[in-house]
């Protein structure tokens, strides 16, 4: 491990060479948008919102999985990147059925926040209106596939922190869907411990607590960082 110096958005900074661009930027007050990234679980690199430009590289790089290196020059908010981010979030809105006004996570939703941040005021792509299911078989929680953005945060927290691996993605491509165990009702799951970590980790209203009214469902995944710190202390 060694300390390297780099430039992000013209700002000189230093970081450890085992850190990724996203975290070094955040430590220095530069926010890069993300949806699938969650501190405390492994990186996924799937949402592509944290793509940044690195000078000298023809390709865009995902800040969450790209390590910093000496002399690196990074730009995180060019006009081109902003356009791409908008398109990606638009795609998410057309992929599912996201209706904020009736969503329990209204005002507490990372997808909603992201569209505000990126100033998305309309969707130019056609909506796909897929037929998706709601699973309310669990005693405490509900899974609404209409609002799922397939970020896999629930899968990772369930597998890596709780150790249950109740969730996974079935199928592939546009037909991908979140399933529990052998695609059975969540309430019948033999592996689910009802710990609720997946609900806290979910960025949208796809996973939520039963009995909450719209706007009440406040999520907080910061406990994960705390768990992580405790692990580090032990080892």
């Amino acid at each position, binding site marked *: 491990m060694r300390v390297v110096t780099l430039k992000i958005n013209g700002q000189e900074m230093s970081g450890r060479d085992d850190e990724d661009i996203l975290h070094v930027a955040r430590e220095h007050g530069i926010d890069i948008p993300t949806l699938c990234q969650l501190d405390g679980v492994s990186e996924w690199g799937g949402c592509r919102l944290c793509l940044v430009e690195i000078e000298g590289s023809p390709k865009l790089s995902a800040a969450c999985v790209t390590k910093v290196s000496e002399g690196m020059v990074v730009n995180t908010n060019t006009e081109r990147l902003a356009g791409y981010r908008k398109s990606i979030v638009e795609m998410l809105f057309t992929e599912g059925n996201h209706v904020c006004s009736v969503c329990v996570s209204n005002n507490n939703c990372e997808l909603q926040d992201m569209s505000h941040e990126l100033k998305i005021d309309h969707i130019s792509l056609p909506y796909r209106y897929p037929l998706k299911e709601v699973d309310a078989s669990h005693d405490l929680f509900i899974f609404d596939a209409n609002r799922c953005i397939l970020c896999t945060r629930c899968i990772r927290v369930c597998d890596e922190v709780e150790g249950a691996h109740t969730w*996974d993605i079935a199928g*592939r491509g546009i037909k991908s869907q979140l*399933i*529990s165990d*052998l695609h059975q009702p969540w309430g019948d799951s033999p592996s689910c411990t009802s710990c609720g970590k997946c609900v806290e980790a979910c960025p949208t209203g796809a996973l939520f607590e039963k009995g909450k009214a719209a706007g009440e469902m406040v999520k907080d995944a910061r406990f994960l960082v705390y768990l992580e710190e405790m692990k580090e202390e032990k080892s």
Partner: protein
Amino acid sequence: MTARAAAKQKQIGKFPSDDKRWLIVAAVMRKYGSAQSALIETLHAVQSSFGYLDDSSLAFVARSLRLPLSKVYGVATFYSHFRLKPQGKHTCVVCMGTACYIKGSAKLLQKVDRKYGLKVGDTSADNKLSLLEARCLGACGIAPAGIFDGTVLGNLSDDLVESKLDSWIAESESVSQTK
């Protein structure tokens, strides 16, 4: 009962059913040291033995390889080769690779749909016939190509496909008549 037979019987007791084909599956898992990385090879073994993967076999594989159920289900549905539903007695696979497409394999499928009412992925109501499509059989030199019950045939024409499917339908009927 010999000691070996008894051991075998005990092993069968752990299987989802007393079907002897599970011994083949168990042998494949053993070959790969029952490691978690043997998942795909094991699913291949189950499918080639039983024709498809049902919930009980997926659960058995998960338990045997110490894998989460959802992961096994995820892998089984990710790969298009694996089937979660039983197939008909006969299968007709039409190649939809580029060369076959250029030479009219999509039109062949349309004809089959019109005449037999079968779309890709369908199995006829009497379970006689399943229609599937393949990505590319790598038999582009003889496009359009297809696989009829495991045998690759090339230069397919409407007549050739129809005669093949008709013969299957007729054959199954004569079998049911003799019963």
